[in-house]
């Protein structure tokens, strides 16, 4: 984990439970109702959407770019873009899916500009990964739980962006392939292949730590 990064041990759902209860009725509204109120110039309604979804969006951005400041900037751009385009949001889709889509695009754009060597067109460079590592011992044989988490965090940052994006949405954010299809506009089979390759590369990197 990077130095100076403050991590919250709570999940989004538990952090919401700890939040003081609002005096208004916004807590009782679902996302679609809050979007409708926001379109009716209810400023507090969009603030409630921020409170509800900022943890996931900031976390996704952090896992994609590996820097808290950049992650919060990207999350801020995501919410500002969503607010401006709120009238175009289709109520038949989930607001969280829409936000994830905007955030993913922001992150990929950032990676193209800031780290041109990690653009989406570079991902096939890792097709030659050795998927046939025969392991007799798990990485945990030599690494503590905390060390595994730290190494996994760094290894995720080294994944090609398309694998990273798919792996994070699937296994860090816990989304289904159907939700990922809606977010990324990519077929499920393709997403499964990207997640698969991400898993294998991460497994290889963690195992290599044992070998060294």
């Amino acid at each position: 984990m990077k130095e100076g990064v403050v991590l919250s041990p709570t999940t989004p759902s538990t952090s919401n439970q700890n939040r003081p209860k609002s005096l208004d009725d916004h807590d009782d509204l679902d996302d679609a109702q809050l979007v409708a109120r926001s379109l009716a110039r209810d400023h507090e309604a969009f603030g409630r959407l921020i409170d509800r979804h900022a943890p996931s969006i900031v976390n996704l951005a952090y896992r994609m770019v590996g820097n808290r400041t950049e992650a919060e900037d990207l999350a801020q751009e995501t919410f500002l873009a969503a607010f401006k385009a709120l009238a175009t949001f289709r109520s038949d889709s989930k607001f969280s899916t829409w936000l994830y889509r905007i955030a993913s695009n922001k992150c990929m754009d950032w990676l193209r500009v800031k780290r041109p060597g990690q653009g989406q067109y570079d991902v096939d460079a890792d097709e030659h990964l050795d998927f046939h590592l025969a392991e007799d011992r798990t990485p945990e044989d030599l690494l503590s739980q905390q060390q595994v988490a730290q190494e996994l965090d760094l290894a995720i940052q080294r994944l090609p962006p398309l694998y990273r994006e798919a792996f994070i949405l699937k296994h860090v954010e816990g989304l289904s392939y159907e939700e990922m299809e809606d977010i990324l506009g990519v077929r499920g089979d393709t997403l499964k292949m990207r997640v698969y390759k991400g898993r294998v590369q991460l497994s290889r990197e963690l195992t290599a730590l044992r070998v060294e």
Partner: protein
Amino acid sequence: MDEQDLVIQRFLDHDLTPDERVAFLQSVDADPALRRRWLNLELVIAEAGQLPRIAPSTKFLSQLKSRLAPHPPGLWERVRAAVTASHTLEWNLAGALTAVCLAVLAIGGAVTMIPERIVEVPTTVPQVRTTSFTSAPDPKILVRLVLLRPDAKSVEVAGDFNGWNPAQTKLEPSDEGIWTVTLSLTPGRYEYMFVIDGEQWIADPFAIEETGDGFGAKNAVLDVAI
């Protein structure tokens, strides 16, 4: 991806049927290498799900919400809104009367501020001059009649404007024997005569136009126009 990789990934993605899952678990029991590959991938998935989550900072939330907060409109926006917005005028009788009074006062004030326009009425003798003053927008026009008669004790004027009653309109003398009077007349054509010392009726000898009075004498004619 070989056959074993494919089965492992389908197991991890829950794509295997129950029977296929049982068969897979039996195979990993029998094959330590396969079991190790599978467990390593399971470890990655489990660790990824337990990675600490990044909590948005208070600064992030406050900055974001302040950027989205509605801002008061600027001066130009307020001016444009005031100019372009449609308004409904609500009124009552008291307000209307007040407005009328204010309008009358304003017009009256404007009339007093406007300088008089002096129109010289040319005469053919040096001792008599007729001068008129006009004021807008009132249709009344001020006309000054002038007669040079140093020998007269009194001079009056009778005409269409005073019912031919000389007692109503007296001319005022000056030191040089110039008699003057200012009349307020509406535009039109007037006939008139001066009355000297209450008994001598004479037409304005230098009026531009004269006309017969029906009794053998002539009246001076004054055309008053704006």
